[in-house]
């Protein structure tokens, strides 16, 4: 059974049909790409999957459970985590605290414990620190653990967002243009990291990207969206050679 299944998703903004009859099925462990022209509705699909927008029609199931129309936090707890196209970090928190916020629902103690600093506070905080550092290491951010997130250079901010999303221990990770604003070298590095995350955390990943090198380099399957509708779906190499896709998206 597919990990994520969306059927006939649709939403409109005013008169604009932003997403229409959208279907997708992602197997566990897959690295899946969502591509398409600007304004095709890719980010909107992410917003539908994560409960930022409620779909007006269609259903979404994760691991067989219906999550359609649920709240963002419930969807996160059900196992979907994401990054944002326009980076959304907790900019006045340190890098490690950003990750610790991601761990929030997985390691805890009561408010009273926190205020009174009972022994459990120290124990759990230590565990959280350790686990957060583990994650930061994966992204090469361990040296910046105590810097404010806002002071990180752009590329590292993108990585931190991924680390934070992973901290919520998702089953499915959604990445919205992770390579935007990176130069080819940095993109190369990011590809390695994404692969590593998949292997190491046994993660299923759905990503939006315009950098074809990254898409063709790591995605196994692709869905192409155009004007809110699926234009083409299938194996990466097939999709990228589809003449319609070339015409609408890739050019020449």
């Amino acid at each position, binding site marked *: 059974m597919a990990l994520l299944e969306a059927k006939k998703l649709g939403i409109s903004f005013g008169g604009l049909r932003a997403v229409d009859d959208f279907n997708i099925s992602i197997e566990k462990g897959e690295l899946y790409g969502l591509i398409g022209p600007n304004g095709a509705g890719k*980010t909107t699909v992410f*917003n539908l999957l994560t409960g*930022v927008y409620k779909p007006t029609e269609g259903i979404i199931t994760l691991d067989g459970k219906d999550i359609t129309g649920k709240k963002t936090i419930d969807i996160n707890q059900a196992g979907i985590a994401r990054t*944002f196209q326009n980076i959304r970090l907790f900019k006045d928190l340190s890098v490690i605290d950003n990750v610790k916020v991601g761990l929030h629902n997985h390691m805890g103690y009561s408010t009273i414990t926190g205020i009174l600093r009972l022994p459990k506070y120290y124990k759990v905080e230590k565990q959280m620190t350790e686990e957060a550092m583990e994650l930061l290491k994966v992204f090469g951010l361990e040296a910046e653990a105590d810097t404010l997130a806002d002071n990180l250079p752009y590329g590292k901010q993108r990585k931190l967002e991924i680390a934070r999303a992973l901290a919520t221990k998702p089953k499915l990770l959604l990445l919205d243009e992770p390579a935007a604003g990176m130069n080819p070298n940095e993109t190369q590095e990011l590809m390695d990291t994404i692969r590593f995350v998949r292997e190491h955390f046994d993660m299923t990943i759905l990503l939006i990207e315009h950098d074809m090198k990254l898409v063709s380099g790591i995605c196994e399957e692709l869905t192409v969206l155009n004007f809110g509708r699926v234009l083409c779906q299938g194996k990466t190499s097939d999709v990228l050679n589809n003449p319609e896709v070339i015409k609408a998206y890739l050019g020449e």
Partner: protein
Amino acid sequence: MSFISYLINGISLGSVYALIALGYTMVYGIAKMLNFAHGDVIMVGAFITYTMCSTMGLSPVIGVLAAVVACTLLGMAIEKVAYKPLRKATSPLAVLITAIGVSYLLQNVALLIFGANAKAFTSVVSVPALKLADGQINITGETIVTIVSCLIIMAGLMLFINKTKAGQAMLAVSEDKGAAQLMGINVDGTIALTFAIGSGLAAVAGVLLCSAYPSLTPYTGSMPGIKAFVAAVFGGIGSIPGALVGGILLGIIEIFGKAYISSQMADAIVFAVLIVVLLVRPAGLFGKNIQEKV
């Protein structure tokens, strides 16, 4: 019959709130700051007219003009000295606090100059009252002038903002000062202009406020200032028609609350209605509820 006179009284009071709220919302909408000193600029405007007309015996026209000019300059000076240096501060609250400082400053300067005694302001309005239904219903000249001024100012502001270049520049500045400058807009000049207009309007509001409710002290502006703030929020802060409607509704609610519920709880009633409205319409009656694009 008393219902109608309550309604008219509500509109009278509300039109004064609306007039103040127009200036308030204008400054807020463009400069994105709650100018807590706005009410005190109103007081200054009223004192200037009072001095010119009641003390020096000049004609009301000169008095009002002098107040408008003086307040315009005052508004620009305040902006330059106290607000501009904080425009790039890391928190928008910083300038809110200096505005409070400026408010105290204006009150205390007025206290030293004019003393604490209330002054009975001589109305500058010579329009006769409108008497209807055998004199049972009485609409004062001040009310008529205030409402007409409100409408003219509202229309003028809307035209100015939507149709003139300077107005469009204000819209751009209110959103993104840097990008506005890249369009060739003089950001400092535009903000100064905003304060100039807002403060000039405050002078008009002060004169009409004190004409309708002729008691002038150094603290005259502070409560109407807050009420106008409430009115502006009520209507959707930053929205010019919202300020007008919000102000008038606030006046009507206040009067009806006093009349039909309890005069002791008038303040509580007004604020309770405000809360209910905002819960139903979180951006006020006319406010755009802007959803952040994710």
